[in-house]
C-alpha cells in the first residue's frame, strides 16, 4: 500500500505538510508520496491510500495526530479502522458531475516526478505532434474549438495561426500565469499539480507557431508553483523533451520562468510583455497585436495556463472529441474556482453547457448554513454577478455575456443574503482603482470617481441621481479605456445596478443597508433583556460610548458610538443588536 498526501498550496495551508512529516516519522518502510490538488479544498488536508494502483481509501480533514492511526492501519492492511476519517459518500459526489481534462492528472500524480506523468500518457501528444506539420496541429486545434480560457474566449487556433504567419525571427510563446483575479486559483493548481501538462501544451504551441523560446510569467505570490515548475523544466530537459533537438527531431525549444512582481494589469497581454521586458507593466495600444510585434518587438503568442492544459489532451484524443462536449459556441470544459458562501468550495471542471445551478447545488452542495443564495460573481473584478433567478443560465461564453457577467478566468464567488451588493461593487472598484496602471485617463480617473460615488452611497451620503451618474460614468469608462482592465472595470457596478437596483435605492433614499453590512448605516443597541451588566463592553469601548451600572443593563450612546463593532465581538450574551 502507498500513502499519498495532497500537497497543493491550499492543502499545505490547511496543514498537509505537517501530516506528511508526521506519517514519515512514524511510518518507516511505508511508501509515502505527494500529489497536487484534487480540488476538494473544503476537505483539506486529504490523504489517499492506494492499494497497488487503485485508490483504496480517501481520508479527509486529516490532522497531525491522526498519523499514528493511519500508519497502523496501512501496516496491518486493515483500512476499516480509518472509517472515521474516510470521505463520505455525499462528499464523493463532488467529483461525479465533473469532466476533467485540464485537471485530468491533478491530485492523482506526483507533480515532482516526470515518470508518473509519462506513465499517465504524458508527452505522447508531443511525440505525435512532432510527426505532424505545424499547420496540421493548428487545424486540429481549430476543429476542437478551443478558446482562450483567460477570460476573453478568443479562438486559440486563430492566435496561433496569426503568430505562425507573421514574419520575424525569433518568435516567442508566452504563458500567462499572472492569475490576479482575487478569488481564482485554477492556474496555480494546474502548475502546482501537473506542471508537465503545461510544458507539453506549450511545446505543442511552440511547434505550431515556430517559436524557439517559451516564457511562463508566473505571479510572484505563487512560490510553490514556481518551485514545482522549475523542477519540471529541469526534468523535461534531462529527458530530452526540452532544449535542443527534441526527441531527435531537430525541433529546438527551451523554456524559462519569469516571476511577476504583483500587478493585476499584467494579466493584460501587452502589459505582460512590458513587464517581461523589465518595465512598468502598462498596456500598449493595439494594433500592432503581439502576434505581429510582441515581446522584444518580435511575433509572440500569449495563452493562459488552462488553455495550454487542454492542448495535449486534444492532440491525443482528437479535436472532434473535445468539440463534442459543450454548446454550439463554447466547446470543451471550463475550470472554476468555487468559493464564497458555499458548502463545498474548491476547484471544479465542468463541461460547457452545465447550468450555474448544477455547479452550485449539485457539485458545491449549496449555500453554507442553508441560507438563501443571492447571486454569484463570475470573472472577478472584470465580470458581473448573476442573480439567483438566472441560475439556469448555462456555462457558455455568449449566454453568460447576455446576463451582464462574463465567463472570465474562472472565479465563481457565491454570495448569500448577508452580502451587500453595493458593498460588493465598491469592493471591486476599490480593487480596480488601486490596480489601474494610470496610463489612460478614463481608467485612472474614471474608476476613482466611480469608487467615490459608491463610497458615498455606502456611507449614507448618496444623492438622487447617483445611480444615473454611475451608469453614465460606467459607459464612459467602458468605451474610453485603453485596455481590458478599464473596459471591464464598470461591469460589477452595472450588473449590480441591473439586478439589485432596490439595494442601491435603499442606501440612497432610506439611508439603510438592507442586509446590514455597510457599517456607517448601522445602529448598535443593547437588548435590555439579554444584557447581564458584566461591564466588559463598557470597559473596552474605544469611544467610551457605553455606560451602565454593574449587573444592570447597559446602554450605547448613539451619538458617540463609532460603530467599530468591538462590543459585538466581546459580548458573551449576544445582547448587542446591529440594524
Amino acid at each position: 500500500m502507498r500513502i499519498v498526501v495532497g500537497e497543493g498550496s491550499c492543502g499545505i495551508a490547511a496543514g498537509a505538510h505537517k501530516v506528511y512529516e508526521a506519517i514519515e516519522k512514524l511510518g518507516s518502510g511505508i511508501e509515502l508520496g505527494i500529489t497536487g490538488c484534487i480540488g476538494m479544498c473544503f476537505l483539506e488536508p486529504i490523504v489517499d491510500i492506494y492499494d497497488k494502483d487503485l485508490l483504496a481509501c480517501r481520508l479527509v480533514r486529516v490532522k497531525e495526530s491522526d498519523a499514528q492511526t493511519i500508519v497502523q492501519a496501512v501496516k496491518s492492511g486493515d483500512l476499516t479502522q480509518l472509517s472515521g476519517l474516510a470521505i463520505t459518500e455525499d462528499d464523493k459526489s463532488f467529483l461525479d458531475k465533473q469532466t476533467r481534462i485540464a485537471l485530468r492528472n491533478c491530485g492523482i500524480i506526483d507533480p515532482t516526478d516526470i515518470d508518473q506523468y509519462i506513465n499517465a500518457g504524458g508527452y505522447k501528444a508531443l511525440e505525435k505532434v512532432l510527426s505532424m506539420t505545424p499547420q496540421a496541429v493548428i487545424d486540429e486545434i481549430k476543429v476542437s474549438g478551443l478558446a482562450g480560457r483567460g477570460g476573453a474566449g478568443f479562438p486559440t487556433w486563430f492566435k496561433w495561426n496569426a503568430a505562425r504567419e507573421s514574419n520575424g525571427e525569433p518568435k516567442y510563446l508566452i504563458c500567462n500565469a499572472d492569475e490576479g483575479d482575487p478569488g481564482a486559483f485554477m492556474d496555480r493548481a494546474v502548475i502546482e499539480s501537473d506542471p508537465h501538462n503545461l510544458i507539453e501544451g506549450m511545446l505543442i504551441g511552440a511547434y505550431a507557431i515556430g517559436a524557439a523560446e517559451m516564457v511562463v510569467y508566473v505571479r510572484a505570490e505563487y512560490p510553490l508553483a514556481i518551485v514545482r515548475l522549475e523542477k519540471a523544466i529541469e526534468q523535461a530537459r534531462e529527458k530530452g523533451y526540452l532544449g535542443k533537438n527534441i526527441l531527435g527531431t531537430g525541433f529546438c525549444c527551451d523554456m524559462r520562468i519569469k516571476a511577476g512582481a504583483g500587478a493585476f494589469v499584467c494579466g493584460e497581454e501587452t502589459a505582460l510583455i512590458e513587464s517581461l521586458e523589465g518595465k512598468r507593466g502598462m498596456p500598449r495600444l493595439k494594433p500592432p497585436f503581439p502576434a505581429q510585434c510582441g515581446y522584444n518587438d518580435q511575433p509572440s503568442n500569449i495563452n493562459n495556463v488552462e488553455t495550454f492544459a487542454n492542448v495535449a489532451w486534444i492532440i491525443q484524443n482528437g479535436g472532434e472529441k473535445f468539440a463534442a462536449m459543450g454548446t454550439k459556441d463554447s466547446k470543451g470544459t471550463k475550470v472554476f474556482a468555487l468559493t464564497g458562501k458555499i458548502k463545498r468550495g474548491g476547484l471544479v471542471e465542468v463541461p460547457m453547457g452545465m447550468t450555474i445551478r448544477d455547479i452550485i447545488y449539485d457539485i458545491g452542495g449549496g449555500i453554507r448554513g442553508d441560507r438563501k443564495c443571492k447571486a454569484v460573481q463570475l470573472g472577478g473584478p472584470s465580470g458581473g454577478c448573476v442573480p439567483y433567478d438566472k441560475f439556469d443560465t448555462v456555462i457558455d461564453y455568449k449566454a453568460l455575456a447576455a446576463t451582464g457577467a462574463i465567463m472570465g478566468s474562472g472565479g465563481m464567488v457565491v454570495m448569500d443574503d448577508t452580502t451587500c451588493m453595493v458593498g460588493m461593487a465598491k469592493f471591486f472598484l476599490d480593487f480596480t482603482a488601486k490596480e489601474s496602471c494610470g496610463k489612460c485617463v478614463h481608467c485612472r480617473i474614471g474608476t476613482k470617481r466611480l469608487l467615490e460615488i459608491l463610497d458615498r452611497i455606502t456611507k449614507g451620503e448618496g444623492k438622487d441621481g447617483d445611480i444615473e451618474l454611475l451608469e453614465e460614468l460606467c459607459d464612459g469608462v467602458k468605451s474610453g479605456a485603453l485596455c481590458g482592465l478599464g473596459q471591464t472595470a464598470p461591469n460589477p457596478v452595472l450588473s449590480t445596478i441591473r439586478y439589485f437596483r432596490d439595494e442601491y435605492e435603499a442606501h440612497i433614499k432610506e439611508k439603510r443597508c438592507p442586509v446590514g453590512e455597510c457599517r456607517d448605516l448601522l445602529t448598535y443597541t443593547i437588548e435590555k433583556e439579554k444584557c447581564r451588566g458584566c461591564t466588559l463592553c463598557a470597559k473596552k469601548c474605544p469611544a467610551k460610548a457605553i455606560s451602565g451600572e454593574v449587573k444592570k443593563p447597559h446602554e450605547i450612546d448613539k451619538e458617540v458610538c463609532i460603530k467599530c463593532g468591538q462590543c459585538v465581538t466581546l459580548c458573551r450574551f449576544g445582547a448587542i443588536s446591529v440594524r
Partner: protein
Amino acid sequence: MKDCKCSHKISDLSLIKNVLDQYKDKPGSLITVLQKAQEIYGYLPTDVIYHIADVMKTTPAEVMGVATFYTQFRLKPVGKYLIMLCQGTACHVNGSERIESAICQRLGICDGDTTQDGMFSLKNVACLGCCSLSPVMMINGETYGSLTPQKAIEIIDGLYAKEADK
C-alpha cells in the same frame, strides 16, 4: 549619494555585486534585479536603487518607476513579522474587513505600516489563493485560516508572548 551627509542609513552595496554582475548586461532584467535586491536587504533602500541605476546604466527615476509600480516592492523596512492579510473576494465575502480593523486596533497601525517596536507590519494582499480557508492571513509564510477578529488578535498576542519568552 556617496557624499550624502544626511542621516540616511548607508547600505552595504557589496552584497548585491554578484546579482548585478549576473544581470547587468541582460536587457529586461530590472524586475529580477529588484526582486533579488529585496531578498538581500528586506526592502529597497534608496542608495541601493541609485546604485542599481548606476550599474544597469539607467536612471534612478526609471528604477524608482518600476519599484513603485509593483506591489511586491517595499521602500521601507518591514517588521520582524509581516502579516499578509488576504483581501480577495472570497475573504471579503467572509468578513476580512472586520479582521483588518481588529488587527489595526490591536497593533495601532494601518495597512502598509510597521509597529514602532518593529515587530509587526501589516499588508493587505489581493489573494493568497486559500479561498476555502477564508478569511485568511499569512504571517512569515505560515497560513492562518478561518479567522475571526478574536482569533486574529489571539494569534498576534501569541507571537508577542513567544518573543517575550526569548
